[in-house]
């Protein structure tokens, strides 16, 4: 009598069901760990701490399939060092090429800062929720960032720039501690030139060269007049900052459901498996990183 179990080839069975050969990590078992091999095509030094990495997927087919929405993140792999979650800073209209603004902070990022153009890294993604730009149509848009938060906000700025007619008034507000922490300064002129986009910058601790505004980012609200009944906001920055900003916006009359923030947590997978980005009763990687502020208010320890 033979009672031996037969091996079930789950991977190829899965392939049979999901035909077409499209790479879809969300449903296809075989693509779980697939990393798109990519090349660092450019490195721009933004500040002594932050560099902008331009990264292109090497395989043409993979490159054409790769697209993302503003606010989404990806997992960047440096073999031997680790995988880290990073917001995508570039325009969502550019396929297969991403720009990542990376601060020299942990083990992976410190090594990345030593890497040169032409070296290979890996990317997985995009993952997570995005800023619901389509919901902002025909409304005023406030794009508010503090410090490194501009990295996450930048793809939304590209979006409003490229789809200017979709929206009414657009305000970009950016604040940092010091003037030399300001990111993407070389783009401010271009942003301002786009019809009707108003850019406000402010620093807390000015140096001798600084001639602009001094104060907290919330001070900027004294300068602008907005129709709060038809305004949406995206706020990116450290939790202390977006807490103050969102409360201020709420006081001005904008419902919390119309404000969107991006949360940062430790992540090891980006796919709701490792639990490390667990916040309150949910995961940052699946339900976030972009949350509306009402949800954040209801999540324990989100801020």
């Amino acid at each position, binding site marked *: 009598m033979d009672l031996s179990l037969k091996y079930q080839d*789950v991977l190829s069975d899965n392939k049979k069901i999901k035909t077409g050969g499209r790479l879809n990590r*969300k449903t296809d*078992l075989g693509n779980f760990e697939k990393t798109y091999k990519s090349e660092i095509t450019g490195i721009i030094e933004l500040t002594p701490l932050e560099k902008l990495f331009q990264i292109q997927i090497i395989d043409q087919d993979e490159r054409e399939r790769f697209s993302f929405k503003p606010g989404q993140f990806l997992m960047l792999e440096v*073999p*031997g060092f680790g995988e880290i979650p990073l917001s995508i800073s570039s325009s969502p209209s550019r396929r297969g090429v991403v720009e990542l603004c990376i601060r020299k902070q942990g083990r992976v990022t410190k090594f990345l800062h030593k890497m040169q153009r032409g070296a290979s890294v890996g990317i997985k993604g995009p993952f997570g929720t995005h800023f619901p730009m389509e919901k902002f149509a025909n409304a005023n848009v406030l794009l508010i960032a503090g410090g490194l938060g501009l990295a996450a906000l930048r793809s939304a700025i590209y979006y409003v720039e490229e789809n200017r007619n979709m929206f009414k008034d657009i305000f970009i507000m950016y604040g940092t501690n010091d003037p030399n922490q300001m990111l993407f300064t070389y783009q401010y002129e271009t942003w301002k030139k786009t019809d009707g986009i108003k850019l406000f910058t402010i620093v807390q601790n000015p140096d001798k060269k600084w001639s602009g505004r001094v104060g907290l980012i919330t001070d900027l609200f004294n300068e602008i007049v907005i129709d709060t009944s038809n305004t949406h906001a995206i706020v990116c920055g450290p939790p202390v900052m977006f807490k103050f900003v969102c409360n201020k916006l709420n006081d001005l009359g904008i419902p919390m459901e119309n404000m969107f923030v991006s949360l940062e947590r430790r992540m*090891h997978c980006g*796919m709701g498996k490792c*639990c490390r980005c667990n916040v309150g009763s949910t995961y940052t990687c699946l339900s976030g990183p972009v949350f509306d502020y009402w949800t954040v208010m209801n999540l324990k320890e989100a801020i």
Partner: protein
Amino acid sequence: MIFKTIDKKDFNKFLEILIENNSFFAPQKIAKDKNNKPIYDLRLVNDFKEIDFNYDILKYPPRRFFLPYREAISSFEIKNSSWQQNINYETKVPRILLGLHPCDINSLNKLDKVLMLGDYPSPYYTIRRKNTFIIGMDCDPKPFCFCRSVGTHTVQHGCDMFLIDIGDRYFIEIFSNVAFDFLKKVTTKDITKKDDDEYKRIRRLKAEKFTAKIDVTDLTKILDMEFQSDVWKEWGDKCLGCGSCARVCPTCYCYGIEEKIDLKFQQAEKLKILHACTLIDFAEVAGGFNFRPERHIRLKYRYYHKHRGFVEAYEESLCVGCGRCGEACLAGITVPEVISSIRE
């Protein structure tokens, strides 16, 4: 569902063939504690005689057969400034696990929801889950078992067959086609009214034996309300932050990735290592900021995930009431005590 009965001696013969034909894991005595009480766990058996049917509880959960404590998920060949990734989706031969209790089978069902049935299914888990034949066995509640409170004291699915001891025979619940085909090759009987009565009697007796329990009524809300409660601090003062609870938990699935480079700098390996939410660096991010800097906060989150977050996502608790964490905790932190302390 299909029910059968089988004489124990026929069933033993059935096991002998299964052992001979397959990689077969069953309960064995692995040690004795300081009071000379035997400790049991699953071990590979080559002979039917090695199986110990007197086991009370499996010391470590069977989770490790599906979600190992550490595994290499992929590797990289490094060549100059470029590399090649090799992904290691394991394709081990199928195996059989005998003697899983309802709590353990239900724990796998819960893991299925996260790792196999939802978005981004994990091939590492799915391959093992689909290639493991599980023979469940009924049990006697121990003083620390509170599975009944969370509804995991019976098995609805998740194993191939489930056995209930009714004297000289086993009452078998058949869950899978494979199990049905296997059993066709040995002598089984259709159930009689007598078997039926005996089954019900035994189930009733079992239900009466539970002593430990937790009250899950409105627990999600109570956990929210008591989020700032000082009770957590009291438990935090006791917690050793050693992660033993997560190590013996049948449903804990959180992990960390660690990458290693060989000494020649030619290869990098990506290891997935199960982590624990009570360890100090669980929520620490680059630069050293820790989202959960204190022991009591980490311990609270353990409960919050098991009894609040998972309930919100899947409408059931992630705890199966096996009581292993309480037994393993040197500080004596048990789920029933923690839950009742926050309900007070």
